[in-house]
């Protein structure tokens, strides 16, 4: 177990700055997942921790020791690559044993280690095969075995599951989580898949264009996204965003021809005219007709997606605005039906579109 401390980390390629002053503390034994869209610098950050990229400015400390100038092999870390990077000419056994051999470990010791590790990953029967003779999932296990076998104090994963099919990905995810509970090693895991992030992580770091948007537990990220970006990135399907303003202590949705308002607290805001209200699809209710006294927005069903347990409704409001609604109720609705969307204001997230930040106000609405 080791902790990793990133201090004002900067990485530039030529005059392009890929990582802007990232600071973060990864605790011992923590499963930290780094997520973000393609090209946001996830791999770059991970490879800097691994020592495969140089650090332009700032420090990386593993267990308190600054490792900026230490070779990857001396950092006591292991990495699993996206395309496995198994040595094609070596058997599974040799792939796993290679690192140990270079560390001058004795033959019998290597034997027992490989056995032990192969049992853990259930690849004992594959030891004599070459990587070419393995399935994708098996290769992934071998790649993990190659990392585990050295008993490093930190594991780094760069999108290790993205080459697998959906079903296998799910089962590997569960196994990986199990592996972490058993080994209790610090793990840093890069992915662009927010589902993987939510299910695996102790904490998630959301990265956008080389900057940290938010670091927090999956629950915090889901319940209290600090920026529009995080709100949009975490959760599937994506959060709905509606333009809103506050008039006379009420929150009014900016939807033409349709008035709907909610009580808003009396708080001084510099800008009350131009707000963004985020609502998760599962926090909107769908009605065929409105009861008296109930408020709702009228729309037309554009598309229905049945996922089995849940159903997604894509509602077309007037003027090119759309809402996504997720419900587990089985409603007798058809495509093109006219429906009403109902809201509960305590589930609203309010953002300032100029800064992209969450407004403190959000907590106080009710």
């Amino acid at each position, binding site marked *: 177990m080791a902790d990793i401390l990133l201090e004002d980390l900067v990485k530039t390629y030529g005059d392009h700055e890929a990582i802007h002053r990232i600071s973060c503390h990864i605790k011992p034994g923590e499963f930290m997942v780094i997520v973000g869209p393609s090209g946001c610098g996830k791999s770059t950050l991970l490879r800097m921790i*691994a020592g*495969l990229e140089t650090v332009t400015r700032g420090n990386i400390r593993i267990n308190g020791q600054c490792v900026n100038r230490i*070779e*990857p*092999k001396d950092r006591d*870390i*292991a*990495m699993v*690559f*996206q*395309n496995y*990077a*198994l*040595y*094609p*000419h*070596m058997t599974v056994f040799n792939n796993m044993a*290679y*690192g140990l051999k*270079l*560390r001058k470990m004795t033959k019998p010791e290597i034997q027992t280690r490989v056995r032990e590790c192969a049992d853990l990953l259930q690849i004992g029967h594959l030891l004599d095969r070459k990587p*070419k003779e393995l399935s994708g999932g098996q290769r992934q296990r071998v790649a993990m075995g*190659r990392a585990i076998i050295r008993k490093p104090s930190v594991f780094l994963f760069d999108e290790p599951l993205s080459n697998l099919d959906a079903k296998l990905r799910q089962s590997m995810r569960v196994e990986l989580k199990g592996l972490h509970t058993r080994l209790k090693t610090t793990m840093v895991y890069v992915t662009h898949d927010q589902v993987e992030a939510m299910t695996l992580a102790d904490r998630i770091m959301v990265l956008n264009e080389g900057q940290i948007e938010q670091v927090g537990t999956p629950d915090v990220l889901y319940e209290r996204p600090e920026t529009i970006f995080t709100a949009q990135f975490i959760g599937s399907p994506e959060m709905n965003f509606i333009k809103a303003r506050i008039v006379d202590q009420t929150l009014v949705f900016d939807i033409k021809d349709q008035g709907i308002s909610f009580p808003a607290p009396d708080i001084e805001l510099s800008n009350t005219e131009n707000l963004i209200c985020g609502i998760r699809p599962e926090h909107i209710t769908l009605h065929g007709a409105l009861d008296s006294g109930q408020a709702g927005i009228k729309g037309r069903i554009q598309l229905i997606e049945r996922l089995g347990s849940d159903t997604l409704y894509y509602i077309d409001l007037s003027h090119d605005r759309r809402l996504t609604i997720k419900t587990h109720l089985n409603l007798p609705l058809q495509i093109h039906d006219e429906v009403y969307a109902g809201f509960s204001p305590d589930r609203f997230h309010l953002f300032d579109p100029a800064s992209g930040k969450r407004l403190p106000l959000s907590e106080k609405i009710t």
Partner: protein
Amino acid sequence: MVEQKNAAFFFNHAVIILGIIVICFPLWITFVAATHDAVRMTQAPLPLLPGDRLFENIHTVLFDGVGNAKEQPVWLMLVNSLVMAMSIAVGKICISILSAFAIVYFDFRFRMCFFWMIFITLMLPVEVRILPTYEVVANLGMLNSYYGLSIPLIASATATFMFRQVFLTIPDEMLEAARMDGAGPIRFFWDILLPMSRTNIAALFVILFIYGWNQYLWPLLITTDRDMYTIVMGIKQMLEAVEEAPEWHLIMMTALLAQIPPIMVVLTMQRLFVKGLTETEK
């Protein structure tokens, strides 16, 4: 439809058979000639069926020599050729793979400059720079030696380009994984890079061996000592017998023997060779 198919079938096969005849008939004639005696070879018509002197001819050629190269038995020429072809093939591969390794995996100053300098040697085969090269070799006292025969031909890193391409197809993660495992550059080269380019090395070896074996002009220029004659130029010398008619049966036998080593190389390396030229999966 069926008739059309048949027509295509016959046409294709006719072309194939014709091609085989064009290639094999001279070989057959060579073989037949090599099994007769000198007298039969001067009579018309030339024989089309093998005679009975195959083993005697082999023995004569290998150990006694032919024509005005009488003092040099053919086995010596074969050895000379073998040493030359081997040194050229092995030497070129070693130099090329090392320079490709440096150019692909190390970041040093003027890297591209070196690459292009190596690349330019592609345009300067030995035939182009033959006089200056001769001068250099003569000054270094390497005439009539294996060094003189092979080094100037090794000294063009034609295969660097090919190895560079091979290394570029090896994913970067392979190097990174090896670094994580604790392999330094030399370990990486021996344990990962070399085994991974095994088939390419084999393919290149076949090509370069034959290239070296077939060298004619260069050995002709720098070997005056008959003990250093290579087989390809040796055959030519045999034709220039002054006082008597060429001993066709023995010359043919020599030609036949000269073909054996390249064929052996191709046959033994065939599987790797094909893989090396066609394999893309890494």
